[in-house]
């Protein structure tokens, strides 16, 4: 394993954790678009309660990934931010809008404003999750065309296509599924738990049905995404694992004592999908269009000099040693301790 691969492991982990935890937070926002009539306020309170202490820490995984990218693989970062600047900008608007709206809603005392923030939070969560998926997809879509002449070919085609859009929708869907399944364990009211469990199952179904769509779209666009998964052994392994996990998650959602299992299995499910993608993409960072006359950009080519990679790895190891204990403490306080009503925090 060379230095580039070590850095890639950290990059992959950051993205994986962002997809799982940041993704669940995005999904929490999306769930607010589908609140049940009778339990509207309870569900919203539960989502807020579950997210408030941890969402900022979960969000930092994305920043970490960006920093690793621009320090370790500057060419990937600069090429992506040139040819994919439109979806990136859209993502940023979404991130700013939802983070602010969530915090403002929590601290604002005016009801009217709170309603506005709620709407912004919910829609911008959907928007952000969608564009995250679009961006991920556009790195493998193979439509980046640095030599193209027109604006459309240069800046729209790489991401504005059926494959990327369907993967964006799929991302939004699995984020919602994660949120729904995580929330099942957070609720302490029986009715609410029942409703959330039903929602978790619906999102699992929707996610399962949406999953093949990007592959079909890629096939129709003559883009061998499925072949890439098939031809990389580890990727295929995770792909199969993901398929096998779908019924397991479904079954674990049937009994309340299996809630912890449902959480763990859903994390494994989404994790397998993400890892399958990473393995299929490795070692290429950005796929360029076949007729662009430019070979695709590999991580190896894009990597910074070894001196930089060494201090990056050193920093990441030391940083992990500081962050993980603190993060474990945070989650232990807020996620693994059941509390009576008295000790619940209130806005």
């Amino acid at each position, binding site marked *: 394993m060379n230095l580039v691969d070590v850095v890639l492991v950290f990059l992959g982990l950051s993205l994986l954790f962002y997809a799982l935890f940041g993704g669940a937070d995005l999904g929490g926002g999306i769930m607010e678009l589908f609140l049940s009539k009778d339990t509207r306020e309870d569900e919203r309170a539960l989502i807020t309660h579950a997210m*408030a*202490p941890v969402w*900022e*820490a979960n*969000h*930092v995984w994305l*920043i*970490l990934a*960006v*920093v*690793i990218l*621009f*320090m*370790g693989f*500057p060419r990937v*970062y*600069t*090429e*992506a*931010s*040139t040819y994919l*600047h439109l979806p*990136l*900008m859209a*993502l*940023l*608007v979404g*991130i*700013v809008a939802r*983070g*602010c709206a969530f*915090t*403002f809603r*929590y*601290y*604002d*005392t*005016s009801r009217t*404003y709170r309603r506005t923030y709620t709407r912004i939070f919910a829609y911008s969560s959907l928007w952000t999750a969608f564009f995250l998926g679009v961006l991920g997809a556009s790195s493998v879509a193979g439509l980046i065309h640095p030599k193209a002449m027109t*604006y459309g070919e240069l800046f729209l085609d790489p991401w504005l296509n059926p494959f990327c859009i369907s993967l964006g929708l799929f991302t939004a869907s699995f984020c919602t599924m994660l949120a729904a399944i995580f929330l099942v364990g957070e609720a302490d009211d029986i009715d609410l738990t029942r409703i959330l469990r039903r929602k978790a199952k619906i999102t699992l179904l929707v996610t399962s049905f949406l999953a093949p769509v990007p592959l079909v779209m890629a096939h129709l666009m003559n883009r061998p995404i499925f072949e890439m998964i098939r031809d990389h052994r580890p990727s295929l392994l995770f792909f199969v694992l993901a398929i096998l996990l779908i019924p397991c998650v479904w079954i674990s959602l049937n009994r309340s004592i299996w809630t912890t299992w449902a959480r763990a299995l859903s994390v494994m499910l989404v994790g397998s999908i993400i890892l399958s993608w990473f393995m299929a993409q490795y070692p290429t960072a950005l796929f360029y269009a076949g007729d662009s006359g430019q070979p695709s950009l590999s991580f190896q080519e894009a990597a*910074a*000099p070894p*001196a*930089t990679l060494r201090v*990056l790895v050193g*920093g990441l190891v*030391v*940083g992990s040693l500081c*962050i993980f204990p*603190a*993060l474990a*403490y*945070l989650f232990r*306080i*807020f996620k693994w*301790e059941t*509390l009576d009503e*008295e*000790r619940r*925090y209130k806005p």
Partner: protein
Amino acid sequence: MTDLLAARSQMALSLGFHIIFAAVGIAMPFLMSIAHYRYLKTRRPEYRVLTKAWSKTVAIFFAVGAVSGTALSFELGLLWPGFMIHAGPIIGMPFSWEGAAFFLEAIFIGIFLYGWKRLPERSHWLSGVMVGISGVASGFFVICANGWMNSPAGFDWNGGEPINIDPWAAMFNDAALGQGVHMIIASFQAVGFAFAGVHALLYLRWKHPVHHEAMKIAFFVGAIAAIIQPISGDLLAKGVAQRQPIKLAAMEGHFETEKGAPLLLGGLPNVETRRTDYALPIPKALSFLAFGDFNAEVKGLNDFPRDLWPPVVITHIAFQIMIGIGTLMALVSVLGLFWLWKKPQNFLRPLWLKLLVLMSPLGLIAIEAGWVVTEVGRQPWVIYGYLKTADALTPRPGIVYTFILYTAIYIALTLVVYQLVRRQISTLQQDLGQPQDKETQP
């Protein structure tokens, strides 16, 4: 508007917006922790109310700072890929450390804000302090990266490509320590004065003793910082005189190289006639301040090619604003600290309170002015002496539209945060209720 101007404006706007939230994120957790400490010592409920009120401010400003900071980490590439492709490997290290420090900050802020009933009191208090410490650290690391743009180190430039990269030398460049310390002190100074002013206003209106306590805490922190700041500023300016003589010349509106150069107070530089008009000169003071010698030679702008001049008028005026405000704040701080020590009753005088109210935005204005000095004063370079800002610009078209979009977002956010803080203050009034009987008032 050209693409370059649009990109520079967008970057200036984003940084100018973010820097306020970052400064609050650096200094405010400490004010909060002092109030919290007082509560734990005295058990007076007002301190608890105050701690909670300040912690909400921290939460709001941290969240906005976090998302606007995320936007910045992407904007560097969206606007300046020509800079990032070279700078990323050289100066990525402080950014990655900043990421780690920021991570800790986000974790501890979650623990502090929601841990009131879940943690032992001491751990809870400590988590608040940790928010501040990691905030200071992350601020310092980012400034290290900015220092490198002013004082590049840790690489050799080989025909437009950096080679022999040494990230350690790059991070600990000559400007890093001076700039970092200056910015952190500025945060405490600006935030201390801002909150002293807000609570002075509230005290004038509501006469609740808690506002008086809050004002004293905030003023004390701000005043200490304001008194140290001129020393840090002087050291930094001496460094600029060595490293970036042209920036110093623009800051001072100094055109003609001379020995025993005068310090120009105020004035308006005229780049056509190459003179600074309407200024008040203090003989030999610039030579002394820049080099510690009244007869030292200070290089003027005329010694440099015209196309390497930064925008002189902006740099000079921004510098004058920063220096003027800094001097005023230092003087007021000395007076205030003396009163706090010897004549605390003066702290209740309406005139003094009104002065603090008037001064509350000054520190933040000085921070903005200081950033203009360092960023505009470095132009036309983005990596001083190596890479021009124009050559770092993204090739994509239509930057002016994203500039408009960002401007709209930041204006909206500013208004919303302002409204939010106002409503927070009225809630604070309800929580506090009416002041108790007059005797308990300090």
